């Protein structure tokens, strides 16, 4: 099976969908000539031309707004917001217009758009370029939120998102772009709302997503060396959420560790914890643990940045705490 990079998987998904459906087009800052800040749209303009691969002005509001309009007019835009930190400038267009128009127009319109963006720390590019803001969008009825951790998931999920008639936020991770993984050359789709079980175990459930899913898996490996077997779940999709996968695992293990690169306070995993409490309270043998980023702007210093986001050793410590083995 071919082994390709995460960013190549994204690009391939875009190219395949654009070949398949002439209504699909790409727009964003530096997506055409430059090929994307992280090379995710490399060479697309050469194949599809400037009308279908459009460099925009530096205005996230315009990018998102134009995507809403285009989508309502019958196109299927895949617009890019270069850093999830800049989604703030696109909020009204995405959360109030894209998210709610189908409902408020009584079903007479749909907004089939994908906003591709990326977030996460690790490049020491500081507070405005390193955040994980998915919690804000899970909190908006009408949009879906997808966060793949592997090249395989990126490609299969992006294709599904493009074919979906809803507005979807597809959040990549800047530290994952050059990761390699097996990706079939034949077409495949991954349905929304299905998590992936990366490891199986009986002692504790560790749930993560995006780059933190990889760290969760790493933690699972290291815990196994210490005689602790962990169920490791990669959510892949925050909304719709595969809550059944999580519940089945918690009912088996009784212990849960939630990992997210978002700030600790008001983190998306709090929603997951609450759902587990609602549906599996009697199966919990220990309080639920969460391992999240510190409640402070992401530091620029490499040492502090590393300390501010969840490290594998912190995930391991949390798992051990659930077992009373602090």
């Amino acid at each position, binding site marked *: 099976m071919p082994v390709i990079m995460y960013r190549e998987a994204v690009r391939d998904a875009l190219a395949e969908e654009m070949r398949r459906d002439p209504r699909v087009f790409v727009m964003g800052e530096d997506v055409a000539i430059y090929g994307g800040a992280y090379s995710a749209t490399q060479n697309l303009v050469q194949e599809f031309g400037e009308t279908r691969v459009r460099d925009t002005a530096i205005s996230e509001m315009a990018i998102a707004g134009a995507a809403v309009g285009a989508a309502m007019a019958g196109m299927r835009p895949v617009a890019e917001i270069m850093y999830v930190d800049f989604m703030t400038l696109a909020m009204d267009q995405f959360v109030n217009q894209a998210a709610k128009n189908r409902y408020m127009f009584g079903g007479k319109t749909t907004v089939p758009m994908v906003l591709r963006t990326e977030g996460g720390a690790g490049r020491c590019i500081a507070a405005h370029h390193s955040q994980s803001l998915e919690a804000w969008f899970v909190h908006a009825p009408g949009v879906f939120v997808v966060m793949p951790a592997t090249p395989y998931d990126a490609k299969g999920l992006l294709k599904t998102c493009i074919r979906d008639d809803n507005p979807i936020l597809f959040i990549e991770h800047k530290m994952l772009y050059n990761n390699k993984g097996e990706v079939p050359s034949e077409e495949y789709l991954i349905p929304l709302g299905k998590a992936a079980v990366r490891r199986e175990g009986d002692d504790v459930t560790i749930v993560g997503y995006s780059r933190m899913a990889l760290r969760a898996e790493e933690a699972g490996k290291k815990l196994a060396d210490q005689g602790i077997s962990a169920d490791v779940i990669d959510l892949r999709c925050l909304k719709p959420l595969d809550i059944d996968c999580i519940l089945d695992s918690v009912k088996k293990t*009784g212990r849960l560790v939630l990992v997210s690169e978002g700030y600790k306070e008001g983190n998306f995993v709090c929603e997951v914890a609450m759902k587990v409490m609602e549906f599996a*309270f*009697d*199966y*919990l*043998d*220990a309080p639920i643990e969460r391992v999240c980023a510190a409640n402070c702007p992401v530091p620029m210093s490499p040492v502090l940045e590393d300390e501010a986001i969840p490290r594998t050793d912190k995930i391991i410590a949390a798992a051990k705490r659930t077992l*009373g083995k*602090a």
Partner: protein
Amino acid sequence: MIQKVILPKLGETVEVSTIERWIKNEGDTVAAGDILCEITTDKATLEVESYYRGTLLRILAPPGTELPVGSVIAVIGEKGEAIPQDILAQAEAAGKAAPAERAEAAAVAAAVEAAPAVAAGRLVASPRARRLARELLIGLEHVRGTGPGGRIVEADVQATAKAGRAVRASPLARKVAQREGVDLASVRGGGTGGKVLKEDVLRAARAPAAAPAGPTAKAGQVIPLTAMRRIVAERMVHSKRTIPCYYLEMDADVTDLVALRNELNAKGDGGKISFNDFVLKACAAALRAMPAVNSRWVEGGIERRGDVHIGLAVGLDEGLIVPVIRHVDRKSLRQVSAEAADLAQRARSKKLVPDEYQGGCMTVSNLGMFGVRSFIPVVNPGESTILGLGAVQDQVVFRQGSIEVRKVMSLALSVDHRLVDGAVGAQFLKMIRDGMEAPQRLIE
């Protein structure tokens, strides 16, 4: 910088305190506000906070030592800092004084660890453990918790189940054991090959209640006195020796009181009002109306108390404590009820501060729930009277020319004859009785 941790004076009349256990250990980092250790004074357990930030360099008072307030019990400073010789020397001298207490405290600590996970009166168990215990018909009070803080976790219930399964018992016997709260492992089986049957379990259930968690006593073994036991003994001897008592008995018709209580509790707003709460209000009114009774014997004469504070006796496994509700006359029935409930709960978990069990003007003690018809209570030194309540019983009485069945309760008042003469005492009791028989006035 070296900082001394001083044994604080947590109560106006406290002279000495005993170190119960250290929460922080030598070498631990402490922050201002962290709890360093637990101490007991009289009957209450209290926490000592750190005023300083640093490393706990040395513990100078091990668990079990009783020291005068103001003693240095520990030293906080920077890691590696040298501790001044004079502090160490002083601590050594004080420490030599109490080897016996240390042994007792160690024994108590060990017993507490062996007991089921009852933290401050609450059974702490994870939801998963509770579910399993329900399924397996295991009473959580039989399970020893090994989770953090003594929490019972699933593995603990499984261990108990395994031990229980080792006991051969009929399925019916197991069900009955769970219902009656009997530990199967402690039942002698009368069936074939020692199998435990239902009647064995029922017999064990009817047997006198097991001794509270702790080292079981062998015949002839002398159990050292706990602080509470010692204090209760001293007070009782003092009372009987120095207070010349006489005793008055009266029956109270509490039919209306019971009905009013049920009516108020049916309304459902707020906590449940208990019988004793009404009695407290009746006593408060009587104390207010008769200042001669609300007095105490002091050097130089008889002190009129003025304020009305009443104690409510609470029985504990290891003894007796009387939390005091202050200014009962100024508070509404509901306020008194809430306060009494809160004090009783904290009394049971030994979390009262000295001010909460001292300073009463009289005490009310109720043994009715055990079926006692009437009893003669012992006057608390420092108070003038104590009221003993018996069980409420349906009795046939002659009332207003006809025979009726009414609810009757026995009241017994023990009175210090130095302070209150017979006629005055009788009037006082009558006032309480009349108050209980016209309960509507108590809630105004």
